[in-house]
């Protein structure tokens, strides 16, 4: 609890220290991925079902947000569009319920295939439903009317709020019978079902909450894209890969692991991009990191450290 408070307060004062824009921009993305990784962890970490489709829900949130503002000519109060977030989150969670009910009937490996298929279906729709998404031309909406010298701040704080929300949900889950039920699913699902544990319901609940959070982050990302989103970035498999990698690096099923993973990987990537210019170099770096984790830290940094200390 104290650790959590120190963490949040530290992050809350960072933007007030007059950091350069590129650093603040980097921190926005770090928070974004920390929230995304925490959301993914609710399914991939706690239940052990490796979703490869979360970027689809990120995209659904992004397009929902852009569509809600699309017809407006201007935004008078920049904060006001954020009021859509709860509705986008709940709506996407509800979409997640039937999807989870079907996809999670399968085993973990089939689930991975089903969810990645979903990702490509949503990506195809984003490119081809011209009437709705504008296709490859992108979908435009009014630019957020925030002053240029503190433009990052509102996004930063809203993403910090979403990260805190995701972490509180994770904390509450781990500490409650939901967490126990999910842990039995991860351990031995058939046995859990035989003990009368509502494994189906627990899995669907975790998935729905997870994709709801993911969609809200997607909406904030869209708003941050100053007035237009494109399908290749809104529904981007790399977003899924980053979420998975961060959770695996930090430690599956832990509260702080996904946050740690996001801070390490996203700062690394943004820094490299800033130093070396935009390049696809980090894709190779991602693959290398994944191999190294699997070889040396199969459970992730935090559980391995905890294992050493005990």
């Amino acid at each position, binding site marked *: 609890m104290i650790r959590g408070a120190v963490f949040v307060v530290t992050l809350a004062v960072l933007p007030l220290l007059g950091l350069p824009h590129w650093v603040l921009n980097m921190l926005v993305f770090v928070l974004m991925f920390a929230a995304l990784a925490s959301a993914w962890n609710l399914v991939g970490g706690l239940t052990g079902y490796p979703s490869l489709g979360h970027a689809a829900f990120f995209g659904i949130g992004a397009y929902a947000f852009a569509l809600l503002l699309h017809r407006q000519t201007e935004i008078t109060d920049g904060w006001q569009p954020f009021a859509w977030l709860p509705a986008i989150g709940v709506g996407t969670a509800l979409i997640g319920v039937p999807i989870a009910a079907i996809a999670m009937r399968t085993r973990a490996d089939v689930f991975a295939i089903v969810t990645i298929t979903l990702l490509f279906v949503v990506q195809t729709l984003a490119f081809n439903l011209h009437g709705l998404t504008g296709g490859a031309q992108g979908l435009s909406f009014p630019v957020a009317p925030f002053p240029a010298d503190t433009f990052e701040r509102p996004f930063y704080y809203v993403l910090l709020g979403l990260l805190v929300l995701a972490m509180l949900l994770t904390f509450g889950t*781990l*500490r*409650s*019978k*939901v*967490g*126990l*039920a999910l*842990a*039995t699913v*991860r*351990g*031995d699902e*058939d*046995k*859990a*079902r*035989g*003990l*009368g*544990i*509502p494994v189906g*319901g627990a899995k669907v609940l975790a998935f729905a909450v997870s994709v709801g959070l993911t969609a809200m982050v997607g909406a904030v990302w869209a708003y941050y894209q100053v007035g237009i989103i494109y399908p290749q970035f809104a529904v981007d498999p790399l977003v899924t890969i980053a979420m998975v990698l961060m959770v695996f690096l930090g430690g599956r099923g832990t509260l702080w692991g996904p946050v740690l993973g996001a801070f390490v990987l996203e700062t690394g990537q943004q820094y490299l991009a800033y130093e070396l210019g935009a390049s696809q170099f980090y894709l190779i770096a991602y693959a290398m990191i994944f191999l190294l984790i699997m070889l040396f830290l199969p459970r992730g940094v935090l559980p391995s450290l905890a294992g050493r200390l005990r």
Partner: protein
Amino acid sequence: MSDLLRVDGLRKSYGGVTAVDDCSLAVAEGTVTALIGPNGSGKTTLFDLITGYRKPDAGRVFFAGQDVTGRGPGRLYRAGLSRTFQQARVFPQLTVVENMVAAAGHRWWRQLATPRVSAADRARTEALLAEFDLTGDADRIAAELSYGRRKLLEFAAVLMSTPRLVLLDEPAAGVNPVLVERMEQHVRSRHAAGVTFLIVEHDLSFVMRLCDPVIVLDAGRPISQGDPSAVRADPRVLDAYLGG
């Protein structure tokens, strides 16, 4: 004495292999009934069919007078029909206490928001943990226990739901002799407390000491049953074990 469990004409095939074949038998309430038979005679499959882990191809299962054929294992568990597995299935990454609480047969949907292991949960596990000599391991991860102690834990855990009938699949296999004796004591004390048992076991001295009646299964159906000495003297049983 009335039958707590009755199965009638049960059949289950896996591809070409008929594991359980037109099997009818009954377990009277208040007994410690043994189910023995050579490897591959269908004992575990019969357990799977009775407890709802697998659906029979034909036949019916009656528990406490009700037709429960086709019911899922979770419902049967909450109704008082529980089992252990031949391979000691516990949740390896959960602690001993968490394993016990997970098996407590809660009304989960009402309890979802309660603590993972509440003070009341812990209190409920205390007597059983003490009885099974697991108190010192209460907060250890189940994976750290020896195989024999994991079997004890699995047994203790299914008792959390106050079952009426417990099916034990080879409780003594792979367990050191001291723990085998403890396992036997636990069955006796729970039996004295009113629990009915159906036990699959290859250790025949364990069976002969503890169980009555004994049912012998061969090729998926009962070939003999009665008190231990009668079964031991039955030539059909010798044939099944020796004739291969």
